[in-house]
């Protein structure tokens, strides 16, 4: 089965539409294009020239739906489409004028034709003046969707079932033996913000693999670089220590010292923000690695491990509400910061089943937050933007979407509200429901742009993404307490078993506990990488000492 949304595959045409296509091909659609009228909101309608108000040819009615015959351009209201069809042989297919959608008069039903939708969308895209990044215009290239090699996926799944058996056998023999790479980190003085993020990084599959396979060699680095400060070296040291098999809690003191030197303004024993720390670590890695490789690429194409793993691209579309001109900007990102969705916004779950917004639904969901992030946001009249087409300041609508997904998706929930007006900061404790498996398809630029124009069967540029959209969670950084005195704990998911990493203490926990926790930063990895990582874990040799793991408090 091809990846991608099956609802956009072509439905079968009815007999009458098929007949029409055979006889007339695309000529009818093409001549209709001249009559299409597009609105800035993405709606298309059919307008008869020289008539303000179309009327039914049989009854002169102008109310309700009006249908425009594709063959003779006669307009009929919904009561008289059959009449027209009976009086003229072969005039079966018409177009709903208000919506620019195909209708079969014999079947009395809406019908679909990708060629028709293409004709509609071409007019739309032509109608929107191009912006400077000509190539990046929405849907400019009409590309057919490519099927990803489904054969490969199936093979891997078969192998997984075999390796799963091996793992379960191992578990029975040494039940309390934790997987490799689980090691507590001692708190060096309000450093739980650091420990929590480190635990997540230690188990981000592509990140972990890079360091464990000597991606950053400390010897080589010491020789090449004059600057002794190297965050990747210190991270490599942590990886070596944590995956050594030694289970006693480890003190990442060297790393903390290096990080203090790197981000001098955050160098103190105060509690820091875990998300801020995460960003600064990625920055530190990028800086060092780009110095070494002497390449000054912008973040988007950077080959440093931090960007290779975490970097994606966000798309921002700003549409002028007067003329419909859309300006598109792409910006790289290493994470997505989400506002919590509150009652005012009606959330939908992944099957797009509506949850009644009339009910007092006090459940915030991650999908709701993502919906909120990608919604069309009307910018206030005090936020007018300059429209290149109108050459004036205009009311605009902004919409975010994800142009390219990273290997590891980091989602940050904005729980800390800072109000510069009141000089106060507060924490939002609202519980957020988050899934363990996440399909990012509805938030991709191709999906968002497609929805903006109504449900047209149309392949947009970006559909042929090589990266799959299915993700599995592997780490959750949670926060408890207040803004001033709080505590970070990370939950790790290894081979579908959850572990709580609370500084030096690591314990096996039930998934219920994780769901009930207050998530702050969530780490999702592409599904295939998650399963591969589990496979790798089960194949790694158990530490030679075969220590049964006991939660031991390290010295703090």
């Amino acid at each position, binding site marked *: 089965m091809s990846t991608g949304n099956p609802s956009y595959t072509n439905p079968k045409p009815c007999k009458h539409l098929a007949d029409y296509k055979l006889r007339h091909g695309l000529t009818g659609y093409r001549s209709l294009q001249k009559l299409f009228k597009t*609105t800035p*909101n993405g709606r298309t309608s059919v307008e008869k020239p020289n008539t*303000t*108000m179309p*009327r039914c040819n*049989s*009854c*002169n009615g*102008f109310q309700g*739906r009006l249908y425009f015959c594709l063959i003779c351009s006669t307009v009929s209201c*919904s009561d008289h489409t059959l009449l027209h069809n009976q009086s003229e042989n072969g005039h079966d297919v018409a177009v709903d004028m208000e919506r620019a959608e195909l*209708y079969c008069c014999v*079947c*009395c*039903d*809406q019908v679909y034709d990708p060629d028709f939708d293409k004709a509609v969308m071409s007019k739309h895209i032509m109608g929107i003046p191009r912006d400077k990044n000509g190539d990046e215009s929405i849907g400019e290239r009409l590309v057919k969707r490519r099927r990803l090699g489904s054969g490969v996926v199936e093979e891997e799944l078969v192998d997984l079932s075999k390796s799963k058996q091996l793992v379960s056998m191992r578990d029975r023999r040494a039940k309390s033996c934790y997987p490799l790479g689980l090691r507590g980190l001692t708190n060096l003085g309000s450093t739980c913000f650091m420990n929590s993020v480190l635990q997540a990084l230690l188990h981000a599959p592509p990140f972990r693999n890079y360091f464990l396979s000597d991606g950053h060699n400390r010897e080589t680095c010491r020789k090449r670089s004059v600057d002794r400060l190297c965050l990747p070296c210190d991270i490599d040291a942590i990886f070596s220590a944590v995956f050594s098999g030694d289970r006693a809690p480890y003190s990442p003191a060297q790393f903390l010292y290096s990080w203090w030197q790197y981000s001098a303004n955050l160098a103190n024993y105060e509690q820091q923000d875990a998300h801020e720390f995460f960003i600064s670590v990625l920055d530190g890695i990028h800086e060092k690695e780009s110095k070494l490789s002497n390449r000054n690429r912008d973040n988007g194409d950077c080959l440093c491990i931090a960007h290779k793993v975490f970097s994606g691209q966000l798309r921002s579309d700003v549409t002028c509400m007067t003329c419909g001109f859309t300006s598109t900007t792409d910006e790289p990102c290493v994470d997505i910061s989400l506002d919590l969705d509150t009652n005012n916004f*009606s959330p939908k779950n992944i099957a797009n089943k*509506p949850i*009644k*917004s*009339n009910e007092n639904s006090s459940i915030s969901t991650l999908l709701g937050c993502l919906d909120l992030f990608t919604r069309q946001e009307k910018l206030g009249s005090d936020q007018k933007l300059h429209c290149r087409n109108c050459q004036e300041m205009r009311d605009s609508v902004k919409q975010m979407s994800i142009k390219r997904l990273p290997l590891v998706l980091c989602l940050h929930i904005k729980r800390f509200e800072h109000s510069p007006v009141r000089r106060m900061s507060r924490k939002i404790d609202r519980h957020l429901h988050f899934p363990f498996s996440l399909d990012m398809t509805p938030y991709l630029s191709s999906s968002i742009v497609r929805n903006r124009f109504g449900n047209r069967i149309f392949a947009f540029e970006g559909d042929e993404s090589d990266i799959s959209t299915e993700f599995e969670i592997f780490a959750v950084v949670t926060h408890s307490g207040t803004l001033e005195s709080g505590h970070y704990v990370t939950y790790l998911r290894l081979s579908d078993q959850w572990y709580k990493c609370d500084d030096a203490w690591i314990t096996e926990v039930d998934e219920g506990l994780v769901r009930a926790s207050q998530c702050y930063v969530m780490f999702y990895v592409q599904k295939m990488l998650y399963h591969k990582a589990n496979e790798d874990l089960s194949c790694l040799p158990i530490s030679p000492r075969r220590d049964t793991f006991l939660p031991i408090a390290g010295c703090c």
Partner: protein
Amino acid sequence: MRKSVNRPPTPDAGENQEKEPSVREIVNIKLIESGEKERLMELLRERLIECGWKDEMKALCRAFVKKKGRNNVTVDDLIHVITPKGRASIPDSIKAELLQRIRTFLVSAAL
């Protein structure tokens, strides 16, 4: 339809219209010509989405399709079944707002 007492009888449907247009038609034409109709439609769409009406209609449609079977339903069926329910469940506040807008428009158009 209101008829003036002195008006000649309405000609058969099918003949080209030469009679006096109804108030409804005039208002409609004026709304379309000025572009106000499009603005009102957008406003209406926005309000109906905000209050959850659109989601309710979607749910009704889904329930209907589920009951009849996906291959036994046409768009016409849906329109005939859902339209009365839809019209009946529009919140009064939205009706009032739209009516107010139309009234304001008519006043300004008459000037």
